[in-house]
């Protein structure tokens, strides 16, 4: 798996590069701003791009703009966007396009080394990854969204983990439940949200996202 990194801080980039290399992920290139990143992607065709939202010159949403551009121009390249603060609207905009291989994480998540490398791999494998904070906020808001209000506390937890792209097994491990119980919860969630269950994890996430987007 080949990765290209984009962040205006060289030290941070180096740190992430070291982390990925040590976990057998090849870092093919690094960029300091959005334009350089787009050029690198065109030249190197990496599997995954990891990009910070805030980059020169205006330090607002350059990374986001570059990410959207790469999604459009190189659909085979997965994009993992890192942000120093969570913005649900941004996340929904990025992930809500129904595309494969998209991730949106709080930048701090790199500190959980194993989890982060796992997320990079999942995105590279075509899954979608959303920061737990985003999911928590999406689930936590919209008191008028009656359908979400139908969920129990436990079902919300399961939905949040589903939204992170986790399998039933992973959820059962996280919540110390049997896999069967998780399956029951998932079925209940789909029923309450008027969604048809689908066998594929990835499609589950998209279904959840589409619902969240609609309710947000």
């Amino acid at each position, binding site marked *: 798996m080949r990765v290209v990194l984009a962040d205006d801080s060289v030290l941070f980039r180096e740190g992430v590069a070291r982390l990925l290399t040590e976990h057998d992920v090849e870092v093919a290139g690094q960029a300091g701003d959005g334009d350089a990143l787009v050029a690198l992607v065109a030249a190197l065709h990496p599997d995954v791009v990891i990009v910070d939202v805030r980059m020169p010159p205006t*330090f607002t949403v350059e990374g986001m703009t570059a990410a959207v551009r790469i999604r459009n121009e190189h659909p085979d390249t997965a994009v993992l966007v890192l942000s*120093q603060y969570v913005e649900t609207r941004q996340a929904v905009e990025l992930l809500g396009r129904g595309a494969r291989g998209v991730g949106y994480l709080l930048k701090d998540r790199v500190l959980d080394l194993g989890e982060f490398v796992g997320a990079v791999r999942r995105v590279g494998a075509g899954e979608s990854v959303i920061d737990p904070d985003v999911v928590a906020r999406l689930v936590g808001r919209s008191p008028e969204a009656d359908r979400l209000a139908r969920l129990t506390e436990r079902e919300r937890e399961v939905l949040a983990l589903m939204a992170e792209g986790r399998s039933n097994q992973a959820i059962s491990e996280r919540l110390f439940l049997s896999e069967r119980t998780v399956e029951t919860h998932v079925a209940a969630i789909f029923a309450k949200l008027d969604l048809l269950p689908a066998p594929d994890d990835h499609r589950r996430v998209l279904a959840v996202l589409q619902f969240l987007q609609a309710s947000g």
Partner: protein
Amino acid sequence: MTDAAAVDAVPAAAAGTRPWRPGLFPWFVAAGVFATGYMAVELARPNVGPPPGVRFVHFLVVAGFVWVGIFAWRRRPESPMGAIMAGVGLAYFLVPPHLSIPVSAFTFTLSNANQALYQAVMAHLALSFPTGRLGSRRDRWIVVGTYIWVIGNTTISQMFWDPGSSGCGCPRNLLLIDSSRFVDHLINVVTAVIGVVVAVVVLTAIVQHWRRIGVRGRRAFWPITLVAAPAVLLIIAQNIVQLTNAGYVAWLVLFGYGPAVFLLLPGAFLVTVLRSRLDRSAVADLVVELEHGVPAGELQAAIGRALGDPAARVAFLRSDEDAYVDPGGRPVEVRPGAGVTFLNEGHTIALLHDEALDDEPDLLRAVGAAARMALENERLRAEIRAQLEEVRASRQRIVEAGDAERRRVERNLHDGAQQRLLTLSLSLRLTLERLGPDADPAITAELDQAAAEAAAAVEELRELGRGIHPAVLTGSGLTAALEALAERSAVPVTVEAESNGRLPEPVEVTAYFVVSEALANCQRHANATRVRVVTSRSDGLLVVTVADDGVGGAETGAGSGLTGLQDRVAAVGGRLTVSSPPGGGTTVRAEIPCG
């Protein structure tokens, strides 16, 4: 205002404040006394010279011009107009019929040689009326030309007129050099033709003069408009009749009784002066109007009415700048001189009026005195308005500078310290990982602790930065920032935004802080179960409302966060209202101009 000088209006025309040749005045009075006295005595002598009616008309013309002129001189010592008018009377005294009982050959010759001088003085009067000063270079040339023509022409014609030939038994003509009738007749023809031309030129100049002066000036000019046409026609007729051997009746009409029309001028002048007195009643009207209170902006029109000059304008000197402005605050050019009257000593209030009003300082003074207090108020109002506008602008600049500074601080935190701490924490984690499971547990525990501390610092800096300036506002706009606020609120919040379009930054930042503070208040005090945030745009206003279903009774008194919000919204020219009836929830509504 105890200073008497400050109570008087100050006519700006500096030349108009000094008396015009005061030394001449007694001589004119003496000459007037002599001329009218002489003619009065002559009137009393029956059956000598022309018929008594003719003598009476001529006496009236002389006396009318002389004494009305002297009266005008006394009334306006600074204007030569009175002197010119009296001059017409004195010149008319020289017209032959008055000296019909010649004292000597010298007076006889003097009288005959100046028989048309009054015409030049009248032209002078007409073209310089009512200020006594000739306005244009052309008028000046016409007047000078008329004087030269009249004096030169009569002097030359006298050289060839032999009174003996008419058989009048008159004294000798001292100027006579040749008694040839042919030359005399030729001169009479030339005189008549050129005389008509001169008369037409003068009449034309009077008409042009009339068209040039303003509405107010025409009012003062009307004695001339009244007398100009008949007088000029009379003089033309006199010129023509002199060529023919018209009979005694024609002479009686044109030279005997005709000059009575000249009397219209001093008569009309007296009426004008009386009318000027009537203007005082307009001043009284103004006083009454002011008493009832003239709405701002109407004062100028009221003054215009009192002056009879609808184009009159008021200008105020701004105390902080050396420039005049009109009541609306727009700059006005005020140059001391004709048509400008300062109403107070400091020259802070100027009246811009028709130049003809310079000739009526009494009226200006009265109107100025009546309106000064109101004008002073209006001036202060205009100044306060201007200062308020400046204070408002500077407050907005201060707020915007503060916002810019907060944005800069947030960005430095975000891209500086926060990023470095994150990198540090990552390095520690990588080191920890590299140490592997066999490392000294004391070291790994310490490193783990340090990495966690750094991560916590990142989190704290993020919170700190958000409080200073929300990055999401700069990056994604107001609606995204309000949604972010809503997501973080403990009380469920719905955000209804009309559009996601970007607004000017001060507007977005202000709206954001309104919602942020309102939500914080709501969480602290309102005990609400839900909050509704609505933004909408209409008529150049961004309207933001934050309504909760809590206990209400919120106060905007001192120390309340809502007071700070009111200041904040006012700084960008907006308005914040809080409605919070006890038990009825709290609604905070901000209207922010957004261009």
